[in-house]
């Protein structure tokens, strides 16, 4: 148990360091000494720094943190629920479902209102999740489920393509930009709506640790231990659906992070207890998302690369490596 506390502290420290690095680095690099001066109550060495940090980089870093945590924990929940190490929000098409929901909203009804984007994303992601749960009862092999996820992604991609064909160019542009993925589009007002939902979701996930541990043994064993399969299935369905939809709505689809982070954590800690893995996966997810964000806004470049490309660049080879290696956790 002490080891767990030590690991959580270590990851928290790492997260704080990466977080500070993320808000200081970028096309304009702010010196670390300025940051310490600011903590002491002094002014920034350049008047524009305050605005860069508070209006742009801080909301972006917070978004990355919580989006990364939420996606990574969703991935872990899905891997436990499907008893499939390759499950994750992106690979099983849940993110694509959310995209389809958003596409329908942005391209068919060009107006948006409060919460309309996250709600559309929710409907899309839940629709795909329910299909995957239905399918998982029929497919035994993890690879079949993966292929089905890919096919759902293609299907939603095709539907989005058809929608785009009939849409005005401005609408297409806003959708395409959204689809590239970005942590930078959230304002403080968006964060006020985004963060509470994600925090509640993460806390709820943690509270289900015991049932999740039993589920690792399969539905029948879990039932014999007093877990109501119907209710835990429903809880996880809504939890994962909402977490993924909320992140996708505000940041666009973000590939592979949800699937890969639980494996990174498992390579590091040999534990299966969700009481230990959920906090560690959440912290690692936040760190990885921040690192991806730092690469996206690499110092010295004037532009910001799409997050989705960066996570794919690292995530796809990781899946290939995993399939080749298929170690004992597979």
């Amino acid at each position, binding site marked *: 148990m002490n080891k767990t506390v030590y690991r959580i502290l270590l990851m928290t420290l790492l997260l704080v360091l990466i977080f500070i690095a993320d808000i200081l680095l970028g096309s304009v690099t702010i010196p670390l000494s300025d940051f310490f001066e600011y903590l002491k109550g002094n002014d920034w060495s350049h008047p524009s720094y305050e605005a860069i940090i508070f209006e742009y980089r801080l909301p972006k870093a917070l978004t990355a943190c919580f989006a990364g945590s939420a996606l990574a924990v969703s991935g872990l929940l899905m891997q436990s629920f499907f008893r499939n190490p390759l499950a994750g929000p992106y690979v099983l098409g849940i993110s694509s479902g959310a995209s389809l929901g958003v596409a329908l909203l942005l391209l068919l009804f060009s107006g948006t209102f409060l919460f309309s984007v996250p709600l559309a994303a929710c409907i899309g992601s839940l629709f795909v999740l329910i299909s995957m749960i239905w399918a998982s009862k029929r497919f035994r092999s993890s690879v079949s489920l993966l292929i089905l996820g890919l096919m759902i992604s293609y299907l939603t991609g095709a539907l989005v393509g058809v929608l785009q064909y009939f849409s005005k160019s401005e609408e297409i542009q806003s959708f395409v930009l959204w689809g590239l993925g970005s942590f930078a589009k959230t304002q403080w007002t968006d964060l006020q709506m985004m963060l509470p939902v994600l925090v509640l979701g993460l806390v709820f996930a943690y509270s289900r640790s015991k049932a999740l541990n*039993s589920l690792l043994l399969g539905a029948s064993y879990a*039932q014999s231990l007093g877990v109501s399969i119907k209710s835990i299935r429903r809880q996880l369905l809504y939890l994962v659906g909402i977490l993924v939809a909320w992140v996708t709505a505000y940041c666009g689809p973000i590939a592979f992070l949800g699937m890969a982070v639980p494996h990174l954590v498992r390579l590091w800690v040999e534990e299966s207890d969700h009481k230990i893995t959920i906090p560690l996966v959440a912290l690692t997810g936040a760190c990885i998302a921040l690192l991806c964000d730092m690469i996206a806004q690499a110092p010295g470049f004037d532009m910001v690369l799409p997050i989705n490309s960066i996570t794919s660049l690292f995530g796809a080879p990781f899946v290939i490596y995993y399939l080749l290696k298929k170690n004992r956790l597979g």
Partner: protein
Amino acid sequence: MGKEKYITLKEVSVGYDGQSVLKDISFELYSGELICLLGANGKGKSTLLKTLMGILPDLSGEILLKGKALANFSAEEKAKEMAVVLTDSLRDVAMKAKDVVATGRYPYLSWKGKLKQEDEAIIETSLSKVGALEYADRWMSDLSDGERQRVILARALAQQTDVLLLDEPTAFLDLAHTMELSVLLKKFSREEGKSIIMSTHDWATALQIADRVFWIDKSSQFHILETEALKKGGKMNEMLNSPFGKWNSDKGRFELLIDN
């Protein structure tokens, strides 16, 4: 110790989706009793066990657990009375042996699932009872079939229930491990007064350890047979019903008919 009635079935029918597989089963199961459930595949052995576990609803009749209707037990209460060993080998479960055994304590823990010192002690005792203590920290996928089955049995023991239901626990095992498991189960029923029902295809072992044999025949009729009577009589050959072997009641063993 006095015999207590743990499970009572009165004219119970079991099956899936309203379709009954087995009809009108009645029996009483006492403390310290070991039952072997025999019968061909697909005749309802697993269905009956799942119904007793409360995983499947019974179609008609009455099931009592310690005198109280099974349906009136909450899932947690049931988990404190009955533990199960299922056919799943748990080879692909990404857990360590001791964590698998720890799940046996879950019905006794709060939602937080934090193990107390007492639980840790029970987990250790359970592992040592089946001789699996030395690989408590190893991953399930790294164990042999025999080792994994010990861990799975330890998990059921950690649940500290009076009733133990096992679905073909010896299916994956070689002869030595089958013998080991059989002896262990007999010991648990004798020394700890557990009621045990295990389904199996291993008739020879069943005849040595079972107090009674429950047999489901080809036309899905349910029979209750006393083991001692079964060993002596000709009923055995009727049950076996094979041109390739017969029961020799003088020698008390099965014999292959190779030259016929």
